[in-house]
C-alpha cells in the first residue's frame, strides 16, 4: 500500500478546489493510497480499515474471497472510508482522465459522509486511530485470555446489528430536556393522568394555588407543596418515578449486559466489558453507511457526472468517460443498481424542483396538459439536492420521492420470475408498473434490523427476558439458536426471547429459552 504519486496528488487537489467551487464542502486533508486487488480482498472484511481488530471470521472470508477471485476476478475502482482525514484507495496505473472521474466520485462521497445527519455520531472521533488502540487492546487480551476473547467478540457481534444506533444519534440532535417542575407535574400530569380527578376537583386545586399566590408571599410553591403532600402522601415518589422514566437514557442489549450481567461484572471477567464496548462502537461507526448506500452512491454519481463534464482537463476523453459511466450507472433490465437508481432519482428531483413541480401547489393541479407543461423555472434544483444530502437516509429518500412520474419516466418495473414448462426456461416478465409496488420492493431490501429490547419488568430471578417488537416480519429461525447461546454465555444465566413466527401466513407468538446451551421453544 503506497501513497499516490505527486502528479496524481496534484490532480486530486485540483479536483477538490473545483468541487468546492461547485458547492461541496469537506475538510481539507485527504489521503490517497494505491492498493492491489489482493489488498482489497484482505481489507474488505474489515471495512477497508487496516487498523480494525483481527477476527477469525474475517480470515475465513479472506480465504474464500481469494479462491473466488480465481474464478471471478473483479476490480473495484475506488473505496473511501469515513475517517479523519478521509482515506481512499485506488488501483494502480489508471490514466489521468479516469483518475479525474474517480476523484470527483470520491470527493462527493467524502462530502456526503461529512454532511449527512445520519453520520453525526462519527464526526468527532478519529475512528481509525481509535481502532488501532482497540486492536492492540484486543491483541493484548488474547495473550492473557486466549480464545475466550474471540468467543466474546463472536457473541457480541451476534447482537451488534440491534444496537441503539438511533439512541446514540438523537441526543446529538436535540438539546437536553429540562426536568419538569413539581408544581407543573402536579397540575399537568399527576392530577389529570395519574389520579384522573374530575374537573371540579381540578379547578378547586387551581383555586387553592391562586389563593396562596394572591397572598403575595415568596414561598408559594413550598406552601402549596406541603398541602399536596398531606393530601397525596405518594406524590414525591410518583414524581421521582416519572422523572426517571422520562429522562432515562435508553440502552441496547449490549449496554444492558455490560451493566447488569453478573457474569461479566465478576472481577476476573471485567475485561470482557472493554471488548464488548469495542465491538459496539465499531458497529455504530459503520451503521450510517449501511443505511445510506443508495443515496451515497447516487450522490457521488451525480457529482462525478456534473463536475467531470465541466472539467477542461478531460478534453478528448469524453467518449471514454461516457462508456464507463454508462456501464456504472445503467439501470439493469433485471436487477437493482444502487448507483443507477440513486442517481436517476436525484436527477429527477433536480429537474422537477427546477420546474417547481415537487410542491403542494402543483399536486393540486389535476389537468394533465397543464401538468405536462408546467415549468416555473425556479432554479432551486441543486439547492434541494443539498438539502436531501443533509437530511435523508436511503429509506426516507426512496419513500418520499419515488412517485408514478419517476417510475414512468425511467420505465421502472417490478419483474417476476416463473418457469416455462414448455420451453424449459426461466421467464422474466413485467409484474407491475405501479410505483407503490416498485417502492415497496426496493424498501424491502434496505437494512431493517429487528427491534429487540430488554423487558425490564419480566427480567427477574436471573432470567433475561428479551422482547422482539413484532413488525410483521419474523426472525430467521436458523440463526436464533446460536445467537441466543451467545447471549446466554454473556448473561451467565437463562435467557428468554419473545417473538412471533409466521405459520401458515399468520403470526404466532413463541418464546425461545436458552438454558445450559440448549434451546427450547414454547408457544407464547
Amino acid at each position, binding site marked *: 500500500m503506497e501513497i499516490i504519486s505527486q502528479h496524481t496528488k496534484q490532480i486530486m487537489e485540483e479536483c477538490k478546489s473545483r468541487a468546492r467551487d461547485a458547492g461541496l464542502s469537506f475538510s481539507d486533508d485527504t489521503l490517497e493510497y494505491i492498493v492491489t486487488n489482493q489488498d482489497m480482498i484482505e481489507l474488505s472484511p474489515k471495512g477497508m480499515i*487496516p487498523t480494525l481488530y483481527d477476527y477469525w471470521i474475517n480470515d475465513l472470508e479472506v480465504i474464500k474471497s481469494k479462491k473466488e477471485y480465481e474464478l471471478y476476478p473483479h476490480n473495484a475502482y475506488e473505496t473511501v472510508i469515513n475517517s479523519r482525514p478521509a482515506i481512499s484507495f485506488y488501483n494502480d496505473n489508471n490514466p489521468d482522465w479516469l483518475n479525474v472521474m474517480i476523484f470527483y466520485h470520491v470527493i462527493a462521497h467524502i462530502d456526503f459522509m461529512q454532511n449527512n445527519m445520519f453520520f453525526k455520531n462519527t464526526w468527532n472521533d478519529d475512528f481509525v486511530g481509535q481502532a488501532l488502540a482497540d486492536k492492540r487492546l484486543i491483541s493484548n487480551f488474547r495473550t492473557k485470555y486466549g480464545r475466550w476473547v474471540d468467543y466474546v467478540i463472536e457473541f457480541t457481534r451476534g447482537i451488534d*446489528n440491534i444496537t441503539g444506533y438511533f439512541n446514540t444519534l438523537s441526543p446529538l440532535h436535540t438539546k437536553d430536556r429540562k426536568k419538569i417542575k413539581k408544581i407543573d407535574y402536579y397540575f399537568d400530569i399527576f392530577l389529570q393522568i395519574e389520579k384522573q380527578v374530575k374537573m371540579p376537583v381540578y379547578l378547586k386545586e387551581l383555586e387553592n394555588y391562586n389563593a396562596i399566590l394572591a397572598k403575595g408571599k415568596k414561598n408559594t410553591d413550598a406552601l402549596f407543596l406541603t398541602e399536596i403532600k398531606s393530601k397525596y402522601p405518594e406524590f414525591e415518589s410518583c414524581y421521582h418515578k416519572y422523572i426517571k422514566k422520562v429522562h432515562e437514557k435508553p440502552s441496547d442489549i449490549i449496554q444492558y449486559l455490560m451493566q447488569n450481567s453478573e457474569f461479566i461484572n465478576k472481577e476476573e471477567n471485567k475485561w470482557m466489558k472493554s471488548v464488548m464496548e469495542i465491538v459496539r462502537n465499531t458497529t455504530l461507526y459503520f451503521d450510517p453507511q449501511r443505511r445510506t448506500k443508495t443515496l451515497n452512491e447516487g450522490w457521488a454519481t451525480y457529482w462525478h457526472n456534473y463536475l467531470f463534464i465541466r472539467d477542461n482537463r478531460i478534453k478528448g476523453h469524453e467518449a471514454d468517460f461516457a462508456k464507463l459511466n454508462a456501464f456504472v450507472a445503467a439501470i439493469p433490465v433485471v436487477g437493482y443498481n444502487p448507483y443507477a437508481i440513486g442517481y436517476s432519482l436525484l436527477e429527477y428531483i433536480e429537474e422537477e424542483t427546477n420546474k417547481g413541480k415537487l410542491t403542494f401547489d402543483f399536486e393540486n393541479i389535476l389537468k394533465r396538459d397543464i401538468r405536462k407543461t408546467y415549468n416555473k423555472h425556479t432554479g432551486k434544483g441543486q439547492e434541494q439536492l443539498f438539502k436531501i444530502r443533509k437530511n435523508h437516509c436511503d429509506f426516507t429518500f426512496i419513500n418520499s420521492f419515488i412517485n408514478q412520474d419517476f417510475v414512468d419516466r425511467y*420505465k421502472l418495473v417490478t419483474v417476476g420470475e416463473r418457469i416455462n414448462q414448455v420451453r424449459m426456461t426461466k421467464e422474466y416478465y413485467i409484474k407491475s408498473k405501479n410505483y407503490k409496488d416498485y417502492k415497496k420492493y426496493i424498501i424491502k431490501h434496505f437494512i431493517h434490523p429487528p427491534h429487540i429490547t430488554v423487558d425490564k419488568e419480566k427480567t427477574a430471578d436471573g432470567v433475561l427476558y428479551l422482547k422482539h417488537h413484532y413488525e410483521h416480519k419474523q426472525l430467521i429461525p436458523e440463526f436464533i439458536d446460536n445467537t441466543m447461546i451467545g447471549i446466554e454465555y454473556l448473561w451467565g444465566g437463562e435467557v428468554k426471547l419473545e417473538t412471533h413466527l409466521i405459520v401458515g401466513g399468520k403470526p404466532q407468538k413463541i418464546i425461545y429459552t436458552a438454558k445450559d446451551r440448549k434451546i427450547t421453544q414454547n408457544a407464547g
Partner: protein
Amino acid sequence: MKKYDTKIKEKTVSNVELKSHHGSSLKHSIFAALPKVESNTHYYHSIKTLDELLERDNQREKDGFRRKINIGKIIKPSKGGKNKVVVVPTTTEDKFYHDDRVTEESDEDKSGDTGQTTGTAEGEEGDVIGEAPIKKEGQGEGAGGGSGDGEEHEVLSNAYDLGKVLTEQFKLPNLKEKGNKKSLTKYKYELTDKNRGSGQLLDKKKTIKQLLKTNIALDRFKQGEKLDLNKFIINNNDFIYRTLSRERDFEAQAVVFFLRDYSGSMYGKPTELICSQHLMIFSWLIYQYKNQVESRFILHDTDAKEVKSFNQYYNSNIAGGTRVLSSFELVKKIIDEENLAKDYNIYIFYGGDGDDWDTETEKFNAVLKDIIPATNRLGISIIRSTFSKNKSKFEEYLEENNHLNEDNIRLDVIDQDADGNRLIEGIKKLVSEEKSGIGTE
C-alpha cells in the same frame, strides 16, 4: 502522512499464536503440505491458515459451542460442460435478522412465482422481457479427455483440501487395510534401457537394424542387393543390449470405481445428490491415500461406459433407460482384464435411484459373486424420491438375495431433499466398520 507502527503489533501477535498452541510449532509437518494463504502485507499478517481455523472449530465443540465452519463449493459454469469447481470454507455470522422468505401474505402472491426483482423495460404488465435456461444437468458430455492436465490438477488439489476438511471435521473413519498391497513406492527391475556395446541381453532385432544402418552409410550395402552378411563390417558399437535398471514404480494402493446411473429418471436433484456425494468420497479418498488412488468412472443407463475424468463423470448428459447390471458387468470386465484384484484394494461406490427395468437376478448374482470377494467395500447409495415410499427394484433385489448381509456391502437410502450434512452422514455409513443397518432418512 502517518504510517502506523507495525513492529509492535507483529511481536504481540506471534506471541499470541505460540501461546494458544501451547508452545507447539506452527508449522506441523502434516500441515506443511497444504497451501497457505500468502500475505506479504504487514498490516494483515495474522491470517490463519485453513488448518488453524479448523483446529479452532474443533475446540468449539470441546468448549460446548456448535461448530461453525462448513464446506462450500463455488462453481463457475462454462461451455462444453467443463465447470470449474473451487472448494471454499464458509461460515455465517448468526444474528437476529428479519426473515424475508416468509411473509404474512394474502392470496395474491400465490401465482407460482419463483422469485421477484426490479428492472426496467418497455411494455405492459405480463410481457416477457427475458429468458434464461434452467440450470441444466450437463451441457453435453465433456469433450475429449477433459481439458488437459492443468484443470485436472486444480480439481485434484482442491479435492485434497476438501478431503482433509471432511476427514477432520466430520470424522470420517480412516480406511483400514492400506493392507498387504503396500509399498507406496515400489522398485521394479526392468530390462528397458538400451545400451550400446554391452549389457545383459542382446536385442537382436535392433542390432541388425543398427548394423544395416552403419553399413548403408559406409556404402557396403545397397538397397535391392542381396544380403550378404559376410560383406558387412561388424563393430561392437552396433550391438544393442538391454540392461537391467531399477525403475521406481508408483503403485496406486487402491482403485475406486464410481458408478452412477445417468438415465432419464435421474434428472435433477437425484443426479445432483449422487454427484455431490461421490465428489466428497473422491476427495476424501485422495486425502486418505495421499494422491495414490486410481479412480475409474463408469456411467450407465441401459449400457455402461467408462469415462476418463471426474469432470466428465460429473457433467455427462442424461440419457435413456436403466439397467444397473450393465455397470457391474463392466466393473467385472475391467477387474478381470487388468487383473486388479491381485495388486489393489478395490472399492466400488454406486449411486442411483435403483429404478431398474428388469433386474435379471441370476445374471446379477453371478457377477456379484465374482466381484464381492475381490472388493474391500461396495457402497450403494439410493436416492428415494419423495413420492414413492416403496423400495426401488434394486433394493428389493439386494434384500431378496441376501446381499446386504455381506460384510463388505453397505446401503444408504437418501431422501430427495437431503442436504450436504445428510450426504456426509451417508458417507460415514458407507465406509464404516460396523453395519448400522439399512437407514432411510
